[in-house]
């Protein structure tokens, strides 16, 4: 009897001790307007206006996915230095709102986007287009060192003068000859923002070529010299369409909002592939809505050996 009871309990416990999933209700959120746009100097006014959806709202997949977010024929006005300069029209082919007057951005102007659509709360966002920086003393030294994995490394160096009057934020991009971003860039410069990595097993603490962020808190009003180390094989000239293309650098003068956006966007990307990660929100500067809008200036210089 005792043996039978013990056996029954063992079988019962093994069969029951398994996980179960049951549905629970989570309240969604009412839809809001979403603005996405990143304007550099001399760009035509152009942005994407969509809507958000509650997390449990039904949706289609594939090509129809965009239609569930699409907002057609909303009123989108652009102010330049607080004066209305344009109204954007919806382009049904490209799903974007753009200037039909071919209006373009100007350096040192402040842009405000207002948008309204029936049934939605109006949204607004403002961003300055900051001054263009001047890159000087650009050098690319070939094969100056080896990294921990034994790869031959080139050294990129250049300088720019920071403006003393304000807190400035910069984004440096290192691009290969074909325009793609260089990968795994090393620097000993502590002014660069340390981002969360998505590869825990890397022995390198290198940065991606489109995420070299820094602020001027340690060099406000001074000339800043940048030294970067990139693997030699990424810094080769390329023959594209019969023309030799050099690798190059871009120095973006960005807003604090853009700085936050890049950081949080990186966090979001990393969290997306890590089931243990804390939830991450992408920074939004849209009042009463979602998305991100900014203007920025970009200076470019090519890299020659």
């Amino acid at each position: 009897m005792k043996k039978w009871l013990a056996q029954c309990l063992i079988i019962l416990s093994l069969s029951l001790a398994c996980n179960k999933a049951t549905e629970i209700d989570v309240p969604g959120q009412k839809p809001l307007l979403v603005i996405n746009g990143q304007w550099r100097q001399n760009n035509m006014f152009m942005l994407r206006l969509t809507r958000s959806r509650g997390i449990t709202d039904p949706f289609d997949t594939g090509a129809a996915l965009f239609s569930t977010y699409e907002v057609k024929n909303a009123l989108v006005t652009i102010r330049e230095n607080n004066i209305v300069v344009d109204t954007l029209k919806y382009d049904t082919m490209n799903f974007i709102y753009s200037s039909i007057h071919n209006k373009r951005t100007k350096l040192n102007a402040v842009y405000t986007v207002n948008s309204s659509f029936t049934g939605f709360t109006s949204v607004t966002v403002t961003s300055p287009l900051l001054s263009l920086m001047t890159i000087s003393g650009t050098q690319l030294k070939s094969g100056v060192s080896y990294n921990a994995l034994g790869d031959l490394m080139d050294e990129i160096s250049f300088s720019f003068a920071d403006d003393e009057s304000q807190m400035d934020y910069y984004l440096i991009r290192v691009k290969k000859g074909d325009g793609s971003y260089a990968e795994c860039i090393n620097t000993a410069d502590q002014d660069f923002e340390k981002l969360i990595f998505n590869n825990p097993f890397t022995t390198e603490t290198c940065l991606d070529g489109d995420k070299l962020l820094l602020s001027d808190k340690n060099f406000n009003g001074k000339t800043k010299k940048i030294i970067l180390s990139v693997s030699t094989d990424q810094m080769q000239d390329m023959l594209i369409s019969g023309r030799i293309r050099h690798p190059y650098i871009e120095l973006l003068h960005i807003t604090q909002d853009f700085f936050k956006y890049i950081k949080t966007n990186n966090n979001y990307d990393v969290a997306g592939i890590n089931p243990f990660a804390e939830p991450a929100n992408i920074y939004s500067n849209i009042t009463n809505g979602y998305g991100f809008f900014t203007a920025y200036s970009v200076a470019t210089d090519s890299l020659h050996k």
Partner: protein
Amino acid sequence: MKKIGIAILFPLMFLGVFAFAQKITIHGYITDKATGERILGSSIVVAPFNTGTTSNNYGFYSITIPQTSDSIEVSCGFVGYQSQQYKFLAKENKRLDVLLSANTILEEVIVTSSRKNNKVTSSQMSMIHLNQGQIKNLPAVLGETDVLRAVQLLPGIQAGNEGNLGFYVRGGGADQNLILLDGVPVYNAMHLFGFFSVFNSDALQTVDVIKGGFPARYGGRLSSVLDIRMKEGNNQEFHGEGGIGLLAARFMLEGPIKKGKSSFMVSGRRTYADLYMRPLIKSINNKGAEAGYYFYDLNAKINFYLGRKDHLYFSGYFGKDKFDGNVNYDFNSDSLMAKNNLYKATMEWGNSTALVRWNHEFSRNLFCNMTFNYTKYQFNLSNEQNVLQTTGVNAVYYQAYSSGIEDKSLRIDLDYLPNPNHFIKIGTSVTWHNYRPGAFQTQITNSSYNNDSSYQAGFISSSEFDTYAEDDIRFSNRIKANVGLHLTGFWVRNNFFTSLQPRVSLRYLLRTDMSLKVSFAQMNQFIHLLTNNGVGMPTDLWVPATGIVPPEKSMQAAIGWQYNWKNNIEFSIESYYKKMDNVIEYKEGSSFVNALNNWENQVVTGTGTSYGIEWMAQKQKGRTTGLIGYTLSWSNRQFAELNNGQPFPYKYDRRHDLKLVVVHTLTKNIQLSADWVFSTGIATTLPVATYLNSSLSQVQVYDQRNSFRLPPYHRLDLSIKFSKQKKNFERDWVISIYNVYNRLNAYFIYQNTVYNAVTHTYYNQFYKFSLFPIIPSISYQFKF
């Protein structure tokens, strides 16, 4: 300036101690007559002077009284023991070693709480004492009772996720609990991802849980002290006990090495799921794969009486969890590069502690305890791939990761009892910490390439010193206080942190059975735990405070009322407010997976506040014993870089927490026990909306951090024990049911995309994942 003032005034408080008078001192040890083990916390009362004291943690007591030509009566008692009275003339100093015999009356044996009226009369508040009997009487899970499961049933202590033994005291984190085994810190107290603790209940003697009003002798963590003491070992005769459950088997043996002079206790426990899992998995996978998991614990303690004044202890704990598996593929096609591929993975983790303790009685009223201890936690993960290529060459790819922490510590504590109005404790310690946040090794060996590379992520050493002084002062029959200071310093990477922490507890006796208490304690913590969601993963990393991630600090004030009704039912109400600084959280998007790369950059520091009120009624005598506890509490966190800088609820902020425990002795041989817990669901963060970003990818928007609550948690456990005295031993059959009414409590919430066949659309549906349904179990226990 305030700190300097306190430092100057504090020693002055002790001056009254050294007043000269004609006095005699009675001192000695209180010992269990049957086992020879010292009894801590027993009361000693000298009748004509209406004064008394209690024995210290090693059974030593000392009481100094005015010299008199009359005879005096000294009575000594402890709950569960027959009290002893001694009469003698108080003309000169006297050594009085007391042997107490356990009560044989049924209800006294059942009594599992500790000291008569001690909770009311003691200046210590926010402390709960448990003993082995209490822990073993609770319903078991898979045949195993657990000290941490018992701790979770106390008011003011929140449980972590379902089934997990992590505990959260008064809004603090799991890393803010100082868990001591015989005075040695245990860094990872969990087996099997937190479902069992490393403490084998057969080896335990007593457990003290301190939630606030910390005496100055404790330091190093913000929120609680869990002081677990192992049995010393019976020095009179051999005894053993053990059990076999569905999950594990255990055995404990104790006895004299030399009767009355020395003893030993050794206890072991091992799971045996691997013994049937391994062949089962192998047969299911047609011998292509196998896997197994086990954990074991080994506790050992020996002690020697070296004369009447010296006592030497050696104790140790060794425990390990190990998971291993391998997969073997055979490739029959000759065209493939590989003929055979064998993949092996191993994950193991465990604690080791060792201790040498020397008790010495310097004089009738000065007792010294010197300790050297060692503790280590190590986590290892490795995988190896052996590929037998068609060329006949065997290529080996090997990767290993390890992390851990190791401490060595020296400590001296002195107990000085100059007169019945003072019980002074002073002490100092130095600890050398070695942290290994993570190390990698990669080996690749084949016909053309041989590479062995290691990567060490910041091996960090630090030193810590602590010194303290406290005095348990009796100002009058009604007013008693424990006043102390804890000074600590910490060196790490050219940083030196110091902290001076005042501690005060005050008791006002309203009646002999009722008291009011207040306390204030400042605490400091030089160590952080990098963990995700407190799941109790072996990957949790202990790291030191640094210049970038500074030490955590807290201040806690509490007020309480205590009443012992007819020396049977204890009622208590306590309210507390706690403020914590420099608590850490992972940055958004970060986790322990990323922490290897510059962990200081993966966390943010902020503040925490918690406050609440705790009610408890505990019945200690009779055929039915148990407790009812209810806690109403709030716990919040605030970080500049999280939740837009706004305060948000702590993950384990449970507004309501109700606990019921009942143990009923039906007959001499049958005992029933039950516990029921109800608590507000834990806080979590869920997405509330989606939108498209600039590259037309869907992005999820999370609401305010921890703004969503999981459904309330509640669960009933039952247990019935059938005992029988056999010829040479006593045996118990214990049948337990965990989660009797099969409540599907949420372990976590996840989302899935679901197709709606009616509308031909998709939608996101959230699910709660439940881990444990109803789990019946049976175990066999014996004792001789």
